[in-house]
């Protein structure tokens, strides 16, 4: 069985994580009398997950390279405040340029902060834990200073779409097309991989197993699209006056883009290879002639940009900028990354794992809200799940002798 699993290319850890998630959903559906699995709740869950998941993707890179960033929640607030400030204070209300410029401003702030933190870590040798702990305080304070503690609103209607609220989804037709494309991509990739393995005379996994795997992936895509399409959008009606479905939310598309790009960077570019090599053995990376300091700075810049993206999604969703945004987000992001199988010791990590980790955390949070569990109790439970996930990893790795 184990041999079959390893040959099929199924990662046992990832598979068991998916099964755990599925189990959670079934249990929560039973406990809430089915409310958890309604399209409306799942649509909200998909949006809630995005902010944490986008930042968790960057945290994977940082933790693989033996770094950490405790400042992402504060940085989310700072970049979000700058985006809101740009729109509300610098441009006339409704100006078509305001929201575009505001996104660039947020990303630019993210890049600058990334260079700043990365420079302290890489060139001055201050541990990332300390630098970003300082950042945690500084950026929250700076976010307050942007508008002297005031909440900035309202934001441009087009900008609000990025948060997945009213009009914040792409509709039934586009969602269906996208789902079909995604299925085609999954099929094509599997086929291309098999052809390649055949060319290099690697033993192929049995066809039925592959078919099962591809079948599951496509079924998941189709299920997701169908559920999103069946959430009625009261602001859009068809010819008979029935509301049409919302379809996939725009922040989810942003997350998918982030996942796609960062997975590609990790697997197919020099930079990604260096991040993993540095995490495995920093001295070896240096002796191999890699400019390791630049690699560290680039990772922090990437994290800054992703925090800015999360800041944009958050402000768009709230239709305002408030300096209290993103509180505790850094801990949820780190928890999602760790639950997703990224090792704090560096060298090991997976982006898709971090995304599933984020979904698990948001599932617990969302489910317990539906069950009317107090927020204090929710925090206790999510903390316990974090310990359980790491314990499971340690236990599993010992058993496998790794």
């Amino acid at each position, binding site marked *: 069985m184990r041999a079959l699993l390893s040959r099929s290319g199924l990662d046992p850890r990832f598979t068991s994580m998916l099964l755990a998630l599925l189990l959670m959903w079934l249990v929560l559906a039973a406990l809430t009398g089915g409310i958890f699995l309604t399209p409306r709740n799942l649509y909200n869950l998909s949006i809630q997950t995005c902010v944490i998941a986008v930042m968790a993707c960057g945290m994977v890179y940082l933790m693989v390279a033996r770094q950490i960033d405790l400042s992402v929640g504060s940085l989310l607030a700072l970049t979000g405040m700058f985006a809101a400030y740009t729109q509300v204070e610098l441009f006339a209300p409704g100006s078509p340029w305001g929201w575009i410029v505001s996104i660039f401003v947020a990303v630019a702030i993210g890049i600058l902060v990334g260079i700043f933190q990365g420079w302290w870590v890489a060139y001055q040798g201050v541990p990332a834990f300390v630098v970003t702990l300082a950042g945690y305080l500084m950026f929250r304070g700076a976010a307050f200073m942007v508008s002297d503690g005031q909440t900035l609103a309202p934001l441009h209607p087009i900008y609000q779409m990025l948060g997945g609220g009213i009009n914040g989804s792409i509709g039934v037709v586009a969602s269906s097309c996208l789902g079909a494309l995604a299925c085609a991509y999954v099929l094509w990739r599997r086929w291309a991989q098999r052809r390649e393995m055949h060319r*290099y005379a690697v033993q192929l996994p049995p066809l039925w197993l592959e078919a099962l795997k591809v079948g599951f992936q496509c079924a998941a895509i189709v299920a997701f699209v169908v559920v999103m399409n069946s959430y009625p959008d009261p602001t859009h009606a068809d010819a008979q006056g029935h509301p049409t479905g919302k379809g996939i939310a725009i922040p989810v598309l942003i997350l998918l883009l982030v996942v796609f790009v960062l997975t590609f960077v990790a697997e197919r570019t020099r930079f990604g290879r260096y991040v993993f090599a540095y995490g*495995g053995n920093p001295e*070896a990376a240096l002796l191999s002639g*890699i400019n390791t300091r630049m690699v560290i700075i680039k990772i922090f810049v990437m994290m800054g940009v992703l925090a800015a993206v999360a800041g944009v999604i958050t402000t768009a969703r709230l239709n305002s900028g408030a300096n209290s945004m993103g509180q505790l987000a850094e801990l949820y992001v780190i928890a999602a990354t760790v639950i997703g199988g990224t090792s704090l010791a560096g*060298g090991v990590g997976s982006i898709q794992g971090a995304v599933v980790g984020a979904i698990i955390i948001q599932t617990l949070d969302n489910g317990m809200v539906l069950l009317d569990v107090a927020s204090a109790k929710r925090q206790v439970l999510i903390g316990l799940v974090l310990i359980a996930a790491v314990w499971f990893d340690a236990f599993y790795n010992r058993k496998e002798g790794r």
Partner: protein
Amino acid sequence: MTTPFMEVRGVSKHFGGVRAVDHVDCDVNGGEVVGLLGHNGAGKTVLVKLICGVYQPDEGEVFVHGKKVSFTKPRDAQEAGIETIHQTLALADNIDAPSNLFLGRELMTRWGTLDSQRMDHEARQIIARLNPNFTQITRPVRAMSGGQRQTVAIARALYFNARILIMDEPCAALGPSETRMVMDTVRRLKDHGIGIFLISHDMHDVFEVCDRVTVLKNGRVVGTQKVAEVTQDDVLGMIILGKNPAPKVAA
């Protein structure tokens, strides 16, 4: 007289008050193996790091093929045709053999992405030449035996057509058959005209492949001798006592 492939002249390196390497002279010619010997702490590994660009000397000069060089980073030395096999092997445990072999010098596709297939293919070929039994190269290096890890490190040095090779204790962690593989490789490279600095503690290995030995003690050079003209006891005397053997009285 031909110019040496690499010549080190009066090189020093201090760490605080400690003179780790103190006015060291040594050289290696093409097709020659020069043993660098000495106790632990004699300055061998620091000397290696000075030659391969990890450290910069406080004093002294290094010449490669008669031209003065000053390496500010390991890449400079690599580009000058100097490959180093470090004592620690300098492998990233979490990635596979081809990734380690090409680390820092990846082969790229036309689109600027990693050409993993070509790297796998090239790695397979060069590793098969060194160690035909070693076929499972696309596993994380962590899961490999000492000899296999050593093979990866040697393959990395050879792939890029080094003219000068520095081997820091290449057999320290190896069993007898793997040591044989490394020694055979050293001999083959020597026949191909590569200049090799070999650091070793094993007198038997040294006398088997080296042409000359340079002995260090407390950061200074005790002396350089032709292996054919001295005995193992003479060399041990140099290492332990810091004393050159008495010159043989010419008849």
